[in-house]
């Protein structure tokens, strides 16, 4: 896969993930042109199109378009299901995901994508395993926070004891 874009019906880009090296200028140009092309397509049309020298696979979920550019020999149908699996992952994580979740927690959307796809290839297709990885990270965060508080408290109290002893 060369890149994945999420954009709204109004053409606002919500997430972009590039797996090939391109300059910012090129990325912007591709995004602008591709969003236009995809938005111009009618609902019943096929989900695949040849665009420049890539194959584009896209699908609309509610107000969001998920759009992937794949290599010529890549499988279109399985890419369509990559999109669907990603939507499922977001849905499970946020609990009935909507566009706003992705806007306000864009960093999470990126983290989940990284657990699922890496370098443009599927890394882990099991829903359970991907969510476990994300969950673990969240728990880790909690633990560290907890430890930090404990540690900070301990340090403070020992200082306090010291002061008391001095007096």
């Amino acid at each position, binding site marked *: 896969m060369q890149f994945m874009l999420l954009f709204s019906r109004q053409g606002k*880009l919500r997430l*972009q993930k590039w*797996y090939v*090296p391109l300059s910012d200028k090129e990325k*912007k140009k591709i995004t602008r042109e591709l969003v236009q092309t995809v938005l111009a397509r*009618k609902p*019943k*049309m*096929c*989900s*695949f*199109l*040849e665009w420049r*020298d890539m194959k584009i696979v896209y699908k609309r979920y509610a107000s969001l378009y998920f759009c992937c550019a794949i290599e*010529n*020999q890549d*499988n*279109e*149908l*399985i890419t*369509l*299901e*990559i999109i*669907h*699996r990603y939507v499922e992952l977001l849905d*499970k*994580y*946020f*609990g009935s995901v909507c566009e706003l*979740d992705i*806007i*306000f927690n*864009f*960093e*999470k959307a*990126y*983290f989940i994508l*990284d657990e699922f796809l*890496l*370098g*443009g*290839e*599927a*890394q*882990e*297709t*099991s*829903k*359970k*395993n991907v*969510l476990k*990885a994300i*969950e673990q*990270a*969240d728990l*880790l*965060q*909690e633990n*560290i926070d907890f430890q*930090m508080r404990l540690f900070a408290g301990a340090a403070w109290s020992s200082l306090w004891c010291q002061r008391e002893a001095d007096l």
Partner: protein
Amino acid sequence: MPAVSKGDGMRGLAVFISDIRNCKSKEAEIKRINKELANIRSKFKGDKALDGYSKKKYVCKLLFIFLLGHDIDFGHMEAVNLLSSNKYTEKQIGYLFISVLVNSNSELIRLINNAIKNDLSSRNPTFMCLALHCIANVGSREMAEAFASEIPRILVAGDTMDSVKQSAALCLLRLYKTSPDLVMMGEWTSRVVHLLNDQHMGVVTAAISLITCLSQKNPDEFKTCVSLAVSRLSRIVSSASTDLQDYTYYFVPAPWLSCKLLRLLQCYPPPEDGAVKGRLVECLETILNKAQEPPKSKKVQHSNAKNAILFEAISLIIHYDSEPNLLVRACNQLGQFLQHRETNLRYLALESMCTLASSEFSHEAVKTHIETVINALKTERDVSVRQRAADLLYAMCDRSNAKQIVAEMLSYLETADYSIREEMVLKVAILAEKYAVDYSWYVDTILNLIRIAGDYVSEEVWYRVIQIVINRDDVQGYAAKTVFEALQAPACHENMVKVGGYILGEFGNLIAGDPRSSPLVQFNLLHSKFHLCSVPTRALLLSAYIKFINLFPETKATIQEVLRCDSQIRNSDVELQQRAVEYLKLSSIASTDVLATVLEEMPPFPERESSILAKLKKKKGPGAVSVTELEDNKREGGELNGEGDRGPDPAAMASSNASTPSPSADLLGIRSAAPVGAAPTSVGSLLVDVFSEAGPAAPSAAVNDDGFLRDLEQPTETSDSLLVEGSGDSDSASPSEDPAPPLSEADELLNKFVCKNNGVLFENQLLQIGIKSEYRQNLGRMYLFYGNKTSVQFASFTTTVSCPGELQSQLNASDQTSGTTGRGWSPDPTGTQHRVLTDFSDAPLLNIKFRYGGALQNLTLKLPVTINKFFQPTEMTSHDFFQRWKQLSQPQQEAQKIFKANHSMDTEVLKAKLLGLGTALLDDVDPNSENYVCAGVIQTKGQQVGCLLRLEPNGQAQMYRLTLRCSKDSVSRRLCELLAEQF
């Protein structure tokens, strides 16, 4: 999911995002962003050290702003600081920022790599994964240099956690894709292959992408993967839908892994081991069988996953192309999909069937679906599906159905989308030629093509029809008749006029017996189109007219009349003017015999490969046309053209021009037709005649054109005859006055010749100086023709060529003769020879002295020898071009100029100029097709200077930006100066 995941703080970020969302206008948004940027900047610069949380929050805001499409030029350092935080989310945000906003700042890269190194060696799997994700996301060369040897170790180490293995495999894949030279194969490779046996399906899924990519490049080292892949596939295919637990997707067991396994097998030929092969065939049969079973779920995900595997299996079957039974089954399965209600499946079935059509085993089976495919072409509502249908029709076409398919494609063309018309035209043209049994059908088809979609008929197509008509005498009469009828339409396409002009010029005599198409009627019909046509077409028509004079002497007076009128003979376009003058002269001075020889019917074209096919291949990439098809075409092409021999490119038919190299097609081919040594009609004299207005001059000193071109190295041998003696009388009468300083307009005159080699250098009331020059490597030779415009003889006519100042050491300019002229009208060429020693920027001076009516005339011109004349065009691919462009990145190697357009910005004109410059004009290099990119090497005696050029026109502003990069900085500057005057 726990609330903590969404609410782990960063309230400020949420507030900022809602603020942005509430902005009513773009301006308000920018204002809000600028305010935030100022705030963040002051926080980062402030004295107070920020805590990790604030740093994370601000970095995240910057990231958000960047993702909105704004530029971010700070915050990288703070993000890098986050990498070494031991709080997971801070580290995570730091990595995310780095992945999205990499900066090639070397100091920063060092710090980032350090942080990654620490995390990789932390033995904390979550940290290791974060670091690996970052490497995979950035994938830069610097990272490859730092980690390409480390990652394989992590990947195959026994104690690595599964999740880390998965990340490491794909991380390595990314590095291998960006910097294959840095990833060394080694002892780890065999262990990687064995990951296909790993118990963890996730590890297999990740590893197989890496293995596939590596096997494509090193098939032998990885060939053990075939049997492993087959057994893995067999286990998945035969498993019940619940066996694989979470790797089952909508009742389909491991669809991603299955597809990837089938894909991997496509890197190899069918397994040699009978048992392995048997097992694989069994798998493929099971997959085909499953497609016939009733679906286990109504969900589209189920059928998509199942069919994804099916299509991949069919690809493998086609790749093997050795199991007739499977191929036919695949074809039948796809046939069912052709009428499926899912557009996606119809699309894929058409696409996949296209490749099936090229297999000898399934070609016939594919053909049985012709009616369905034609129907798809007519009724599909989605253009991309129609395009696939057209592709399939093209692929399934053979002698038995060619007429039907071509007819359908032609009728589709009338309503086809503009985006695919050109390709359709090429395809119809190829099919018509390939399967033409009777050539009247072929001619009809191509003329129809021009009628229906003239704008999309490229030069290759009409060149081709002419080549075929010329090479096959059984179709010439029919072609002349048909084209004559087609031209009678009130509005006909210019391409039709071109074909018409050429064919009637060659074969108009075959239909001249019919009073309805008598010579004069033919001529008037052609000439009625003349004024509506572009310059190249008019040039072609003029050639057709002179051919008419030969074919039909009775039209001579009428045509001479036309040629003589001001709009021809004084046309502002040099090419047209020259042709009109030359043809007029030719028709009035040459005897019928000479005329008949010069204007003889074109000889058959030597054949190589259809230029149309070449064009289609170029358009679609090499994979688009199958090998069998190419071979097919060669065979049929040979038969079609009657000639076995494969000579130079047929497109060369358009390039035999009388004198100046010009973009317009000359179909006469005077140069090759004229017998060598027939002085009165040789090229030299034609050129010379332009300069003498109405003289009887039959120049005795005609240039032997062949010798001129060939013998640069030993010029005296062939040029003796023309560079006659005469130095004697110039010596004696040489005025003793010093040469005059160069004329004020000398530079301007010089600039006219940057992109061309021949023409009139100078003209005043007395004298006209013509120039003809030829360059090869670091040698150049220039002929000067002096025309006396007065009725009196010039006395003491001398010319001297000199190199001022430092030019002496840069350029050897030797004056071959000092040709003098005192003989009234007859012009006398002088030769000068140049040898470039190194690059130069000044031009040699030509001083001319003579007496006219007693007064000494003394004028000095600059000879148009410019550095670009010594260019050798260099063709290169886009990749090479950019690599070299990068290599020439020192600031002084680049010269750039932005300037206003002084001349027409027309594409063809620009292209002609750039070609005239001597460089190779490279297509498909610049991502913006409006721009021009050229490459060439300047040959000097001592060294070669590589030059790359980019010209970016801005039609709206009528401006250009010109950028040059040369391996020598003085050359960049000089070329930039020279060229800025040309456009």
